[in-house]
């Protein structure tokens, strides 16, 4: 029986997170507009855009290779696969054993590489520029992520997201400085990975500063729809990940059956909403930084993460 529940919850989780992606983006934009004193578009607008884009025939450059056509599917698929591994409203879902933090990072990297290659496919300056910056920022984000993972692994004894969430849920760890530091590091990584302010501005097409947009300038039609969808999904994934690890309360054990899921669902939606609100506030509060300030931003995150790990060493050494 438990197996059935876990599979069901897994399926529900996938549907939920896929559906949530456009909506979350819409809500985020709406919140930002509100905070800036604009009315803002309807929260479902991104969904409508996607559907509209899907109906259009993409235009490819003459010298576009199969890469241009395959990459969007690969990126979207990788995003979906990664999203399927992150616990959301319940723990112990069917894929829980697979949900390793490093594997998730690897799947995200897969999508990133696909996007970079797609950007370079037809040999435009913008594509190359975007790819170069994307990969460089990732190179600095990766260590921060792994160091944060180090702190989590020391506390939970594993890098399995589900187990980590469980360990934090059961508590006994209490509140730790090092956890806070790891959280900051992860937040910085999330911002960089999703090309949000202050690293990049998702709403602009100003060539010299853009990173993410530069790579998909050539994309159109369903390809563009897939790129956008992958981006939205990644944002959702990160928020889900943060909430699962640092706000584990309310997660239902998958085996417990639907009646408890409801509670978990409510809690999850609330957490995501809160995170979206916080992100919107953060983004509208500060300005985008110059491209070559980003390394300092991520380097600081890395150092904080390291500091957290060291503090942990000390504390574990004492106890």
């Amino acid at each position: 029986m438990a197996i059935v529940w876990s599979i069901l919850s897994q399926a529900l989780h996938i549907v939920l997170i896929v559906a949530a992606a456009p909506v979350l983006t819409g809500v985020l934009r709406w919140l930002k507009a509100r905070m800036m004193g604009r009315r803002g578009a309807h929260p479902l607008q991104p969904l409508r855009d996607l559907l509209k884009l899907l109906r259009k025939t993409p235009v490819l450059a003459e010298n576009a290779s199969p890469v241009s056509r395959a990459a969007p599917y690969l990126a979207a698929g990788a995003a979906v696969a990664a999203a399927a591994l992150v616990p959301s409203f319940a723990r112990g879902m069917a894929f829980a054993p697979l949900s390793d933090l490093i594997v998730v990072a690897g799947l995200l990297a897969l999508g990133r590489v696909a996007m970079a290659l797609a950007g370079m496919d037809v040999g435009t300056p913008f594509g190359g520029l975007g790819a170069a910056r994307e990969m460089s920022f990732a190179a600095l984000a990766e260590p921060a992520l792994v160091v944060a993972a180090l702190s989590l692994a020391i506390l939970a004894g594993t890098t399995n997201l589900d187990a980590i969430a469980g360990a934090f849920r059961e508590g006994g760890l209490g509140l730790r400085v090092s956890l806070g530091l790891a959280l900051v590091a992860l937040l910085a990584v999330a911002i960089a990975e999703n090309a949000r302010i202050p690293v990049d501005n998702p709403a602009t097409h100003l060539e010299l500063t853009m990173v993410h947009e530069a790579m998909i300038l050539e994309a159109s039609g369903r390809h563009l729809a897939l790129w956008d969808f992958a981006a939205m999904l990644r944002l959702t994934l990160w928020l889900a990940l943060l909430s699962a690890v640092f706000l584990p309360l309310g997660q239902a054990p998958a085996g417990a059956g639907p009646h408890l899921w409801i509670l978990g669902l409510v809690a999850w939606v609330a957490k995501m909403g809160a995170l979206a609100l916080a992100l919107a506030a953060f983004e509208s509060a500060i300005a985008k930084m110059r491209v070559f300030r980003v390394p300092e931003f991520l380097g600081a995150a890395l150092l904080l993460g390291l500091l957290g790990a060291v503090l942990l060493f000390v504390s574990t050494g004492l106890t």
Partner: protein
Amino acid sequence: MLTLLLLATGSLLALAVAAPVLARHEAGGRAVFGGCAAASLLIAMGAIGGLLGSPEAADLPFGPPWGPARVAIDALSAWFLLILGLAGTAASIFALGSLHGPEAPRRLVPYPLFLAGMAVTLLAADGFTLLLGFEAMSLASWVLVAHDHEEEANRRAARIYLGFAGFGGLSLILAFGMLAGGAGDVAFAALREAPPDGWRAALVLALVLAGAGSKAGLAPLHVWLPLAHPAAPSHVSALMSGAMTKVALYVLARFAFDLMGTAQPLWLGAPLVALGAASAVIGALRANLEDDIKTLLACSTIENVGLISIGLGLALAFRGADLPALAALAAGAALLHALNHAVFKTLLFLAAGEVLHGALSRRIDRLGGLIHRMPVTAWAALAGVAAAASLPPLSGFASEWLLLQALLASWRVGDLAFQMGAAAATALAALAAALAAAAMVRFWGLVFLGRPRTPRAAGAEEGGRLVQAALILPAGLTVLFGLLPGLMLDLAEPALRLMTRAAAPRAGFVAIGAAEGGARYWPLLVALLLAAAIGAVVWAVRRRAPTGVARGPIWDCGFIAAPHHLPFGDPSTQPTASGFGQPLRRMLGTSLLVAREGVTMPPPGATGPAILHSGFDDPALVALEGPVPRWRDAAAAQAERLRDLSIRQCLGLTFGAVVLMLALLAWLEAR
């Protein structure tokens, strides 16, 4: 098994001897390379047999004046023989396929010798035989590095290469001497009896790091590698990067895990971890800045060697801290990554050789858009690139996942200083992996994607059947090892037991695990999940979207018609090698590699492109070619003053010696 392996080695030597005669005939080259391919395949099979079977040993009928040369095979050497066999097979088939007409003896003779030297090194059971193979391997590959000696650059590479080889050999001899002690018996069995301790152990490790480390390309003795590997013919570069560095790492492992005994303290691993982390970052960063594809790949080799040595160092430390399971985990990560890197780096070098052969250039800025003209090469290379970028579900990711797990567990070693160092190493390893991904995207994207940058690149041609086979074979292995790392880890188990007296955590047939009940990685399931997700996406899109695509000119924020004299567009409107490296050069290069860059802008109103000049100096190379020769020349100048004496003054020297000696005697006798 041992007889089989010796047979293969002997046949390689025979081929080398016969090569000068064969070279006269049209089919001579085919015979040699075909024979090498067969022998390599034999070696691979013998290695698998050795991994499954029990250790064997034998004495050769010849050897140094003081005794026979001893050979043996155990799990550790068998594992590296497997690496050698796989890389050798692919490289030999490639060489066979890219033959055109008769081959010069100087390219034909050393190749089998090179393979045989590596095999002897791996089979050796005493210090002399090991050094014999080690130096023979260096000498043979030196001839191949110098094969195009009309070029000053290649001569420089060969000079530095052979110099480092000799230095490494001498250091290793000293290391063996330190281990052997007064008895002077360098048979491995005898060396195991008396493990060194205290400063002797430290000195041995330092000498081994100087000897084997320099051969493997560990910083700061890596400088010869980016010079020498590209200078050799491509199939040899593949072997040098894929197999030779592994042979050096084997020597390192043989010393650190076997000959120096199991009762070594924790800190013995620290230098390996530190040097490995440094090499990983330096190599990966340089790979992002080089604009010669073979040099780029050589730098990525430095990075991977660094990662492997981190694994070995961690295993040593864990073993010293009495954490056998973790030691096995780290050692398994190292061995697995050695195998995976050997396969995908061989693949990449062979692809680079095919690119060089098809588009007649190794410089990124003269290539581009090759995926249209050389699809097989491009897709095969993509497999290698994805593995080198450690993307799931390919082989590189599996081994680096294991390595990261080992690093994440390194805090279990109680020592605080070690914990901090390991945390830093963790960050550096992750940085290196991500940098490697960037470098690989740069390599594949600029070479195979985009538009051709020269007419020759536009007219590139795919290689023959054999060449494609030589590319597809390692590509397939890369995927296979990526999907079944558990299988390979089980195969490596005897080697792990030999190194750490423990087995890697069992995680079943298709998975690898960090620890009993710890994190797991199921490559097959992840691959299936990925495939399913992609399938779902495709299905969903197909349901709503119209099929087919429209073709149009490149948009690029506005349409610009290509100038007439450049049918495939103006190359200068494409990202260049140095342009693509710019962000990393600014972020890290300036601090780590004293990188520099400058832009020459066209005058206002002119339509010419802005040219970006950039470059960097590897500090180690600067030191090698700056201060060191200066000190040497200063010393030489002093020595010359002694030489310019007249006969009378030379007599004065003799006289002085006599008087000094007599005074010494008088003094001694007075006491």
